């Protein structure tokens, strides 16, 4: 098992804030919109540097999505910022018609995704957003794993033409990827090569997969760990190449097991190479109030849950 360490921990939303500032410096067409959550989205640095390119929309997310769509006409690259729940479910029809169907170059940037938003509870803990967004034709869906990767992804999507959903979160999580990494949309990142099981993970749970991989190595199981930061378009080649070697798969995500990364992997496997797969995901339920750590444990998203899933799936191998 390749050794991963971290010296610092930060929230991925701060990676977005840093990336937005950098994207704004690189391209004067980048503009930012926010629905009354500037501090939560870490947009302050961008606003300070480019006040004329920031638009406070107020608590009106539908208006924000369509204003962003309109701003692309004439060349702007709008980044919208609000919680994942209000970036997707609340405004699905606006995104569908005015952004996705109209092929507008809007970057929908969504913080506080999943259970780890914590104490606010299930009204705010969206676990269905990846599913909704990946079903829209032409939408790119990205869920980076740490601060550095979120920053790199934010800079990368400014250079990519087309609608993007960028998902990140509130909790402070280990920084273990390079600060000068090149983020290639749609290209999976090989975290650790192995031969016994393929672990496909997205978002900050990749760190849990690394922890699981270390324990599995002690148990004599050589796990391949792949970071699927881009859920759509999925790196099908990386998925198939890995399972051709390992013969089984575990998918890990802070999302409902219906409609998320696991389903995307399962579809690729079913069509191309039917392979045993286990899910580490929320089991079709809403969340609840609690600390992020308590919630990750209660809803089965810890390293131990990944190890259990690996043990189950290896037994199912032919």
């Amino acid at each position, binding site marked *: 098992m390749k050794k991963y360490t971290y010296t610092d921990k930060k929230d991925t939303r701060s990676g977005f804030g840093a990336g937005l500032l950098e994207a704004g410096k690189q391209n004067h067409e980048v503009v930012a919109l926010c629905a009354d959550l500037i501090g939560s989205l870490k947009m302050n640095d961008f606003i300070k540097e480019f006040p004329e390119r920031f638009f406070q929309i107020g608590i009106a997310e*539908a208006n*924000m999505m369509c*204003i962003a769509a309109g701003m692309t006409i004439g060349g702007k690259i709008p980044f919208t910022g609000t919680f994942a729940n209000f970036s997707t479910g609340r405004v699905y029809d606006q995104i*569908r018609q005015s952004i996705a169907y109209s092929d507008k170059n809007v970057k929908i940037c969504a913080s506080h995704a999943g259970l780890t938003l914590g104490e606010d509870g299930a009204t705010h803990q969206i676990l269905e957003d990846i599913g909704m967004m990946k079903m829209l034709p032409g939408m790119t869906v990205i869920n980076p794993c740490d601060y550095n990767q979120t920053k790199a992804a934010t800079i990368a999507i400014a250079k990519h033409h087309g609608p993007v959903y960028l998902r990140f979160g509130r909790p402070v999580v280990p920084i273990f990827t390079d600060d000068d990494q090149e983020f290639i949309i749609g290209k999976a990142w090989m975290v650790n090569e192995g031969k016994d099981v393929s672990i496909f993970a997205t978002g900050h749970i990749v760190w849990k997969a690394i922890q699981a991989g270390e324990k599995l190595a002690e148990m004599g199981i050589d796990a391949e760990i792949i970071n699927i930061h881009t859920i759509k378009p999925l790196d099908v080649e990386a998925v198939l190449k890995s399972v051709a070697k390992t013969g089984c798969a575990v998918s890990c995500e802070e999302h409902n097991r219906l409609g998320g990364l696991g389903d995307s992997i399962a579809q690729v496997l079913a069509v191309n190479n039917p392979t045993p797969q286990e899910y580490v995901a929320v089991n079709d339920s809403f969340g609840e109030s609690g600390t992020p750590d308590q919630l990750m444990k209660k809803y089965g998203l810890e390293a131990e849950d990944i190890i259990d899933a690996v043990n189950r799936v290896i037994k199912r191998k032919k």
Partner: protein
Amino acid sequence: MNTEIQNLQRTASQVRRDIVRMVHGCQSGHPGGSLGCTDFLVALYFKILKHDPAFKADGIGEDLFFLSNGHISPVFYSVLARSGYFEPSELATFRKLNSRVQGHPTTHEGLPGVRIASGSLGQGMSVAIGASLTKKLNGDKSLVFCLHGDGELQEGQIWEAAMFAPHNKVDNLIATIDVNGQQIDGPTKLVLSLGNLKAKWEAFGWDVLEMKGNDMEDVVNVLENAKSRTGKGKPIVILMYTEMGAGVDFMMGSHKWHGVAPNDEQLELALAQLEESLGDY
């Protein structure tokens, strides 16, 4: 009446012929609102807008128009075709398979003249505000226009946009509301009352104008007046009073023709009332 107004009226007559023929040709679509808004769209595209039918999607340096009530696509398509965005013959493919002339306007099939999809109501004012903000950022002095149905004002997003534009001094925007008092299920006052629209828009901080939407001379005058009021710190809204089905006597005065196509006999009756001024497609 001057010659220019007469020419616009003759163009409007041809557009009305196109509308009823398009809707008849596929036996679906929305003739009522299309006929009611014909004079407005003809005045806009043949007199008011600074626009280039060679069509560049980014619209830099051009006035832009967004149709928010996308179901009145027949009038939009006819006006686009008649002003040179595409061949009028393509109107015959309206709502048919493999056509660029989709049921509701879209950029998806690449039809020149369309810059955003519409159909799901309530979104176009926000889109127009976005385009207006970009024009301001670009130092582009041209204007942005949008059109809405009065029934569409029942969508909450309209009022989000209505609040945003005055607060942000979006004064390069001219919105028009087609006040015909009708929607699919009946008169707006029975379905969901709109109340005092003038007072509502004024209370939100807009510069409110009123217009007789089926009187070409008034349409041109009010639109020119609206243009002269841009750049003064307030967005402008025109309450445009129209008759659904205007120009075809048996389609006027009720919501019945909101989304119904005429049969062969009704088509002939309608065409008999409308001069073929530019030649049918």
